[in-house]
């Protein structure tokens, strides 16, 4: 037996089984989704949603694909939020505090209200990663923001108009490109391939009959 609950999609009442996610409940109610639905698995941030449970003051935010319905849930989806994304040339930025001041100066207007952190659908410490960005600690900002799906709910709640996900995106790219230690064995291998080191080996594989390839495959040595 399915237990039914009442939910309110954009204020309109529907009765849906209580085991559904908000996304599936909308479909159960008859919505053919185009906006507000992407990976359906919590990775893409397409289905940011705000809701309030009747009788409760608190406005909550979630991903519709990752959250079960509750009785008396008032739901509004947020399929798009106008984040500010500054354009820059990754090959032409310096990994210093300067770049944040230049591209996203509004982060210094953060009033410390922590609304971003409270709203984060991924449970990240958003205000903290903005603090790291303010002082140019891109590595810490990258680490703290890593699980961000860029749904934009934090920015929707920010009185200072900060586009947190874009700030974090910049920090991660700077960290990945400039601050993380370079990979020696990767550079060596790219060079070896350019120099044709493996050409003969590969060419031999291109010609081998399938029977020999099977032999090779079935008896290959597997690293522990």
């Amino acid at each position, binding site marked *: 037996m399915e237990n039914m609950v009442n939910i309110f999609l954009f204020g309109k009442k529907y009765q849906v089984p209580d085991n559904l*996610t908000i996304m599936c409940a909308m479909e159960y109610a008859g919505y053919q989704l185009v906006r507000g639905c*992407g*990976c359906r698995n*919590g*990775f893409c941030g397409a289905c940011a949603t705000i809701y309030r449970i009747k009788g409760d003051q608190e406005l909550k935010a979630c991903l519709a694909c990752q959250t079960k319905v509750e009785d008396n849930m008032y739901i509004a989806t947020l399929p798009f939020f106008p984040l500010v994304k500054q354009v820059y040339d990754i090959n032409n930025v310096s990994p210093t505090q300067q770049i944040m001041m230049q591209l996203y100066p509004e982060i210094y207007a953060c009033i410390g209200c922590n609304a971003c952190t409270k709203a984060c659908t991924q449970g990240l410490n958003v205000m903290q990663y903005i603090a790291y960005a303010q002082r140019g600690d891109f590595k810490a900002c*990258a680490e703290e923001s890593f699980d961000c799906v860029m749904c934009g709910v934090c920015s929707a709640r920010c009185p200072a108009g900060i586009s947190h996900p874009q700030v974090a995106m910049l920090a991660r790219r700077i960290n990945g490109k400039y601050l993380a230690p370079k990979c020696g064995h990767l550079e060596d291998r790219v060079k070896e391939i350019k120099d044709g080191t493996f050409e003969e080996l*590969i060419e031999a*594989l*291109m010609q081998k009959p399938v029977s020999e390839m099977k032999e*090779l495959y079935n008896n290959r040595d597997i690293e522990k």
Partner: protein
Amino acid sequence: MYSEKFQESIKKVEAARDKNIALEPRRMTADEKEQLLAAYHPDYKQDEFRVLTVGPNKGEKVPKELSEMLEAHSRIRDMKIDLSSPAYDVDVLVIGGGGAGASAAIEAHEAGANVMIVTKLRIGDANTMMAEGGIQAADKPNDSPAIHFVDAFGGGHFAAKRELLRKLVCDAPDAIEWLSELGVEFDKDKDGNMITTHGGGTSRKRMHAAKDYSGAEIMRTLRDEVLNREIPVVDFTSAIELILDENGNAAGAVLLNMETGEIMAARAKTVVIATGGAGRMHYQGFPTSNHYGATADGLVLGYRAGAKLLYADTLQYHPTGAAYPEQIFGALVTEKVRSLGAKLINKNGEAFMHPLETRDVSAASIIRECSTRENGVETGNGFGVWLDTPMIEKIGGAGTIEKRIPAMMRMFEKYGIDIRVEPILVYPTLHYQNGGLDIDEDGMTTNVKNLYVAGEAVGGIHGRNRLMGNSLLDIIVFGRSAGKNAAKKSREVTLGALTLSHVDRFEKELEDANVDTCKVSPKLLPDYRRK
């Protein structure tokens, strides 16, 4: 927390945990694998396939659901489309905004072409975003592109087009370097060495990762780069038919605004199909790990325009889709969970197979365990087997799960399951389209000129099964290459008059073959409304 009905089996799993950690299950022999696949893998269920009666692959079998789309009517049948003044006019038109499309667009732009992306949903709404486990590249001293080649060729049942596979493995290290230079954060140790693991069927640890957000990290970086380059992205717009020129070469696409229904035309000197996979076709009724728009659109577009399919009869069922709870039924549980040491355990607490066989073999083995062997755990929604995640913490130390697979931890945490102390239930889920459009080494289709394909819409790179981590790799390698080649080619192209006569021809072919259908294609989106 699992309810009472699971506890008895969980106790057995717990009791056998130390013994199972120590155990190195035997790998199956080639013969054992063949027999297992023939008996249990969904690709071998003959009555789930149909022989095509029209088009370039007439006489070959494909999944029933795909044949319905390939033999459906065009969405523009009986429509008058004005091709005289296209809404968009570019050098390179990229259809699809996933990892392959974004890579192609970046490289075409780098080569100086006027390039644009059209995408059915948003840029980044793609299977790339959901790839968790990692990306392969033979860049360690004990490894080589040749070893990578042998692993992938054997894993794909010796069916890959060797010239495509050669490109895949030889361009892999450069792909990793390209991504690193764009700012993708790979897991490294303090000296910069890549932290790599095994995937099913690999003989060297060459799986590079960014925690278990590998695809998301790559996709969001590529998207950011597309936006930095100010490459036009026309979102919520799908291509519903290719446009050819009077010489039969690709020359653009008919576009549909997904929200307003408006139909437009785009003219282009070269076209790149990067439309991705087909999980939302739900072949054989399987759930899927794929994103909402994975409906094989590119295969339909290409097929109607005369492009050939290769291996369209082979799909990949990822062995470990979530089997419980039902809210995440079919969602991907990354293979990296097994790379880190978790084993597959049946309801009696037995490690019934080596956890890192290739995906097709693993999927078939789990299906066998849950069917004829009757060793599956009843989930309320079918059966599953345990994936004993707490083993990871025992092997790698406390904190390993949170550090290496945070997305998995979060996914189950939402439903009250702590994967650090409780095992999870898994069953195969429809994951990847092994087959697709047939291309040459430059990425151009073998029989429609100026039509390039990249990513999951391609067939032949992997053969009849794909190894973990070779798909994130192929979207980058073949995406980049398609972008470069399409840009280069666009400089030589002089377009003839645009035409949609191939669509009429295809309709005529359907009629002549007595195909009686009320379906239209491409599918664009699945319909999950309550019927």
